[in-house]
């Protein structure tokens, strides 16, 4: 069973305790200036966005079948069975394919560094593996961010919409998007207002590359046999022509032309 976060924007009061807790957990700087930055960056893994009196969190969605994990050539990014998508900097060679592939544009880069790392929310793996909540969920004073089993949280989100249909748009973001994510969102206003795209396919993106890659093991021997066969035929033809004498060579040349 994998863990997940449920963020209910209607309960959020924009206190930014999640931001502060996240910064502390990940040893990132945090002050009033950073608090005002309404976007994720190399030094801010989660941000509370505001739109009038409506709020929305942005953080790594920790997808169920993450594009970043599938594309990483050195397996620096991994999806743990507990839910978190973690990053092992020592493996990374800095190709930034994870950044190019992530449909949510989450992974950020230390562009100013000579030994740059990919930076993103990793869903507090040490805490989650130790059976604790993520820092953001633990420090949320209103319960807007809730930590738990993904299936339980989905049922709870459904129930909240059912009990209070006028309070929510009838969509739990993250149940189906790109095959599902470990961060689930509820909102009273359309998700697009906060930059969450709702035109994503419901199949996991890695399937699209895997469909092609999985054919390679068959292709290699087949290619050898086919190309080798063509080589044998063309050279055999030459040998036969040579054996049959010069006249045959000439005629086969004419044919070729």
């Amino acid at each position: 069973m994998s863990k997940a976060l449920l963020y209910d924007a209607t309960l959020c009061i924009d206190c930014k305790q999640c931001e502060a807790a996240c910064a502390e957990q990940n040893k990132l700087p945090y002050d009033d200036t950073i608090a005002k930055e309404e976007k994720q960056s190399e030094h801010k893994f989660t941000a509370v966005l505001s739109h009038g009196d409506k709020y929305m969190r942005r953080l790594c969605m920790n997808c169920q079948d993450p594009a970043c994990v599938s594309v990483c050539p050195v397996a620096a990014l991994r999806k743990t069975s507990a839910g978190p998508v973690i990053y092992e900097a020592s493996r990374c060679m800095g190709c930034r394919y994870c950044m190019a592939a992530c449909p949510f544009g989450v992974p950020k880069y230390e562009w100013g560094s000579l030994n740059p790392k990919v930076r993103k929310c990793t869903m507090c793996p040490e805490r989650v593996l130790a059976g604790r909540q993520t820092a953001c969920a633990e420090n949320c004073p209103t319960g807007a961010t809730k930590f738990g089993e993904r299936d339980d949280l989905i049922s709870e989100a459904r129930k909240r919409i059912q009990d209070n249909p006028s309070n929510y748009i009838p969509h739990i973001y993250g149940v189906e998007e790109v095959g599902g994510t470990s961060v689930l969102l509820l909102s009273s206003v359309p998700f697009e207002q906060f930059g969450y795209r709702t035109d994503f396919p419901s199949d996991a993106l890695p399937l699209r590359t895997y469909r092609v890659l999985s054919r390679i093991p068959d292709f290699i021997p087949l290619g050898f046999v086919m190309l080798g066969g063509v080589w044998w035929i063309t050279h055999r033809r030459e040998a036969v022509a040579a054996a049959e004498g010069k006249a045959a060579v000439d005629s086969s040349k004419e044919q070729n032309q």
Partner: protein
Amino acid sequence: MKMKFTFWKAVFLLVVAAGAYGTYVRFFHGLGASTNLSDQFPWGIWIGFDVLCGVMLAAGGFTLTAAVHILNIQRLKPIVRPTILTAFLGYVLVSVALLFDLGRPYNIWHPLIMRNPHSVMFEVAYCVMLYTTVLALEFSPIVLERFNLQKPLKVVKAVLIPLVLLGVILSTLHQSSLGTLYLIMPTKLHPFWYTPLLPVFFFLSAIAVGLAMTIFESSMSSKHFGRELELPILQELGRVLLVVLTVYGILRLEDLGHRGVLGQIFISSYEQRLFLLEIALALVLPLILLSLPKVRQTPGGLYLAAVSVVLGFITNRLNVSITGMETAAGLHYIPKWTEIAITGAIIAVGFALFAAAVKYLPIFPEHKPITASEEPVLVKAPVLSHAGD
């Protein structure tokens, strides 16, 4: 030693000097200082041009070796060596460009021991690594002949056919895989270019560009190395190019229609203009030129068609990797001068190495010594910088 100072030599030195300074900025101040890349736009021209176009432009290597050694078309043999040289230099330079782009270039060897077979990049890394080795071996007879090393020459010649087979298979895999790289980005790449057929299109266009580059190169060498033009050979390549382009064109049209994007061709947009430019250069103009026998049989007509194909597919690769991504990223990416300077310097060094190889190694069948006035780098340099536009 006599050093003639000419205009193009000055340009060459200037480009290399700019590249050297760019290299300093890149490795002492980082990617942020040397590129206009950002979190929203993590891949720029070092990937889109240097790697994607570089690998594509070097596709003549596998196309020609397959034609000569596997299909046994011996008439094409005289142009195999310059094509292998180009391919080998191309792949070496692509690897160099990659060292600039990787955030941690000293970890470039990591895929050797840290594997993720689900990653297209992992597969490309292995194929490119192995194929560069294959090209080095395919190129080695030229060097071994030059120094008259008979024993190793015998060894290489004995394994040549398996090597060629391996080279063709590796090329098929990674040329197409460069397209597969983008299959994971259906939400980012514009529908003109995002299609499940990307790997097929990348592979077919690599063959087309391989042929076009061979025509282009032979024409250039005949002009600047004082060699005879192998016109009948080029005419034959032109015919094959016509066939490949026709197949590609039909598939491309079919695909656009099937995905219901054809209508968008008539709606004015940033992507539409770039798409039309690509199609005009890569397909329309060369198809017209090559289907007219009178044009196809002249050196000038062939040359023009080849240049058009090369420029057209460079546009295609840039559209897939850069311009087709801009709308989703919500910004326009314009490379920083350092990005351009380094790319320019890599190309210039490539030309210099090509010229040096032609001068000192038996690349062309009748190896004629060249005179100072035919200094190859200098004459050829402007053509390539133009191709990079």
